[in-house]
């Protein structure tokens, strides 16, 4: 009985496949429309995701400069640095002594000779504090800076975050736009799919009528439509993925000199599956697409990428540089998504 049931479903599946093969042009067009409509919002989302990753990298590069009071000596400064290193939200602390600060200033400012005229070093010693990535968001970093500013021996804690804030604001605006666009395009997919099904039903009206007259249940009549819908949606999702996946990472890499992360979402599969068949055959689409994976929180960045990892931005402090983006293998299911490839 159960064997018969699966056999019937298998028969319907192959029947639907055969039907699609017999009308290749119509199938191809439907698939292309679904593919492109799916590729647009997800591609935009991918772009946005990459930009956010970029800004995430800069967040990690956020540093707080602690200007020490003039009367603090090297030994005392070392002790303060040790204490700071023990704090859990701090990734690293670098000590720049007054002499080192002066030397660097001379080198960078070009006032070398003029500075020699000063009889006293006017620069304070500095502790450069880098928060851990988890505490690298503008709000967290600002809070950290405030708390560090009250440390004994610290004259001033300075955090320059304006540009990060601005970028994040822009990104959240863009995200809203993308979500709106994705919603509209998703609606378009639904309408297109609905229309296609309507046409298919019209095309096969005699067949439906005959099957009804000889005692076919509604479920029996619905089944081939659901299968062809599922197959076309799946093919559309594949097309969308194919359209998107090679273009974005490479263009991103070309623009920014980064190895951008290709993170193909699992949701197009589910979308497509759900649009077509989800309402009646939830388990089918679920089995086909697997579960959609959620984006994880930013992960610990690994060391410098030998090839293209450095961000060529001379106007930014040198420590902004090294961050590696993850290159994800394009995957169709969660298991593979979990197996991310770090380069």
């Amino acid at each position, binding site marked *: 009985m159960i064997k018969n049931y699966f056999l019937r479903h298998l028969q319907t599946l192959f029947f639907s496949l055969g039907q699609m093969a017999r009308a290749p042009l119509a199938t191809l067009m439907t698939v292309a429309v679904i593919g492109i409509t799916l590729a647009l919002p997800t591609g935009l989302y991918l772009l946005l995701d990459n930009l956010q990753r970029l800004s995430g990298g800069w967040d990690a590069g956020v540093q707080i400069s602690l200007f020490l009071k003039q009367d603090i000596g090297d030994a005392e400064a070392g002790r303060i640095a040790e204490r700071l290193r023990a704090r859990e939200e701090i990734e690293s602390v670098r000590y720049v002594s007054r002499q080192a600060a002066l030397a660097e200033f001379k080198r960078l400012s070009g006032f070398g000779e003029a500075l020699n005229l000063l009889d006293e070093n006017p620069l304070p010693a500095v502790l450069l504090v880098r928060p851990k990535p988890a505490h690298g968001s503008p709000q967290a970093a600002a809070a950290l800076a405030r708390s560090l500013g009250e440390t004994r021996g610290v004259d001033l804690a300075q955090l320059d975050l304006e540009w990060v804030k601005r970028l994040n604001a822009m990104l959240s605006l863009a995200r809203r736009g993308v979500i709106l666009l994705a919603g509209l395009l998703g609606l378009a997919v639904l309408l297109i799919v609905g229309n296609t099904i309507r046409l298919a039903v019209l095309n096969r009206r005699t067949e439906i009528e005959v099957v009804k007259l000889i*005692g076919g249940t509604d479920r029996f009549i619905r089944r081939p439509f659901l299968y062809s819908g599922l197959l076309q949606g799946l093919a559309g999702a594949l097309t969308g993925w194919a359209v998107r996946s090679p273009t974005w990472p490479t263009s991103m890499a070309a623009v920014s000199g980064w190895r951008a992360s290709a993170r193909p979402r699992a949701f197009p599969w589910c979308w497509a599956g759900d649009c077509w068949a989800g309402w009646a055959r939830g388990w089918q689409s679920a089995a086909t697409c697997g579960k959609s994976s959620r984006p994880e929180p930013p992960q610990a960045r690994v060391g410098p990428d030998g090839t293209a990892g450095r961000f060529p931005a001379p106007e930014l402090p040198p420590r902004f540089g090294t961050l590696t983006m993850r290159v994800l293998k394009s995957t169709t299911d969660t298991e593979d998504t979990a197996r991310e490839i770090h380069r």
Partner: protein
Amino acid sequence: MIQLTNVSKRYPGGYDALKDVSFELAAGEMAFLTGHSGAGKSTLLKLITLIERGSRGQIVVNGKNLARLPRRRVPYFRREIGIVFQDNKLLNDRTVFDNVALPLIVSGVDHGEVGRRVRAALDKVGLLNKEKLHPIVLSGGEQQRVGIARAVVNKPPLLLADEPTGNLDAELSDEIIDLFHEFHQHGVTVLIATHDLRQVDRLEKRRLMLRAGELIYDSGRDA
């Protein structure tokens, strides 16, 4: 097998297709339903197959009171009836075999069983050698025989036909009606709606006559 008691059908708009029709068709009986076009023959068959629901009266088919049959049971009810149409309603994108197999596939008959029973049905209508052809290449009489094979492949106890010879010449009509007669002799209840009085006279079976929605003549069971 079929029992109608004071059945009326009024279509929306007030047109009375059937008025107070009562008759009973015993199991294994064969009868002709005659009358001019628009007399209500097709409507009567539609009521019996639950394509339409009656407005008044009671219809009992194969022991089932149709008024009390819920919508979801209708497909299962129809599997107990073989229906032959004037325009045979074959699917031209499938072979003769697939057309005849459709009722079996619909009711989920086992794969091996399907082949056996389709060939048996095609053998009965004399088309065993044409199972791989598409209906469109067959003659009108052959197409109608495929339609009959499809109607009987499920071995239904009741066979209904709506003008099965409507599109055929006299000789082919005889063939088709003889085929129905053969099934009748094997114990199937047969009801044929036709305006072809020649066939009715030829077989001397029970005759029900409709005029303007009313049953005006019933030759009785013993014919």
